[in-house]
């Protein structure tokens, strides 16, 4: 509904759409890049592209797979651009220092981010969409141009790897 009104140049609807969707996209970018600055730029780039492509949305199709596909391509393009510019640098080197005052929630978030870095890209993508952005399996399948079964398989492999990693960390402590 908001998207249809955005297509009809309704400023209030567009503002509301940005307000509702941006936090989801920002969290997803942050989970991938671990840099608030880069995530902020990616979010802006995504909305520039969404604005350019807004006529391609066809109601009543779900908005999130459409929007998230654009966001995913923006993220990948941004990654390639940064890779070209900086050469092959480890993302861990660019990672911001964790905040000194850490609540339980922050600790959990940092643990998840740290663990996700050790997953293969395809599994990490699925997990971020599922657990950070809160998309459904069907929506992820549409975004990835895949089947629900294949997405489920990737997610379950990621759970197994994370479980093993958590066990390893506990053993090391």
């Amino acid at each position, binding site marked *: 509904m908001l998207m249809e009104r955005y297509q009809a*140049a309704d400023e209030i609807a567009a503002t509301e759409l940005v307000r509702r969707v941006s936090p989801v996209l920002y969290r997803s970018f*942050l989970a991938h890049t671990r840099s608030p600055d880069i995530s902020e730029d990616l979010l802006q780039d995504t909305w520039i592209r969404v604005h350019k492509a*807004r*006529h391609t949305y066809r109601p009543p199709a779900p908005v999130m797979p459409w929007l998230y596909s654009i966001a995913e391509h923006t993220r990948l393009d941004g990654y390639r651009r940064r890779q070209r510019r900086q050469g092959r640098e480890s993302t861990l080197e660019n990672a911001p220092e964790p905040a000194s005052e850490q609540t339980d929630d922050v600790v959990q978030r940092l643990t998840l981010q740290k663990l996700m870095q050790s997953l293969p890209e395809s599994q990490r993508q699925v997990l971020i969409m599922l*657990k950070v952005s809160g998309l459904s399996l069907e929506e992820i399948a549409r975004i990835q141009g895949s089947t629900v079964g294949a997405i489920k398989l990737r997610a379950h492999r990621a759970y197994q790897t994370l479980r093993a990693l958590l066990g390893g960390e506990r053993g090391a402590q």
Partner: protein
Amino acid sequence: MSERIRAMSCDEFDALLDLGNPFDQSDEARQHLQECPRCRELAAAFGGGRGESLPASALAKAQTAALRDLTPVRPLSSPFVAASGTLVALACVILASLLLYGSHGWAARLPWQRASSYLGAGSVLVLSLAAALRERVPGSSLPAPWRYAVAALATLVWTGPFMLYQFQPETRFWPHGAACCCNGLLVGVVSGMVIWLALRRGYLLSPLRTGWFAGVAAGCLAFIVQETYCPVVESGHSALWHGGVVAILGTAGLLMGWRALRSE
């Protein structure tokens, strides 16, 4: 009456993780979380996954980007309308080509040969056209297994003539073949332009893939025209000069997609 809660396995717990926060789930899930430290840690890590808040500056930038030059836009035509319009235009290209080149190949081929080649090329044409048209809308790409099926069938069109026709050395293989290929390429280029008209309003996230699908669709249409007008019923000629058009136009579409990607 005492109720015993059924023990849940880690795999069953994973299925719950797909749906959301397992802390809110059934008694079985809660019991599994008490008994399994790894699943407990995993669920706890995911529990904190959605906590990041969006800075006000980022929201302001996003709103500026989304609202700049805000004018009403006409939504893209429905896939059915786009596909029907394109198919009608492509049918016109086939008719015009046959009026120009004739249909001597129809009588020269056996019914089962005609049926096999038209069915093979026609199915690849429809599938690749559908795949290309779906690429217009972000998040609507054909699922991966279907994309692989199109690629596999396109290879079959290229190699199919070896199964359909016998090998008979042709005296004017090169001059006759080159002329046949040029005619096929001309039909393919016109078809490609028709398909481009249908794609031009879309927002192509994967120009490479879209270019390849469009090229293969145009190539298959050219293949159908060549099989109808060309009287030479020989495997080498059909594979190289008819099937080759599918390969050439598929590659051309891929290169055009790559060029579009580079110019972005």
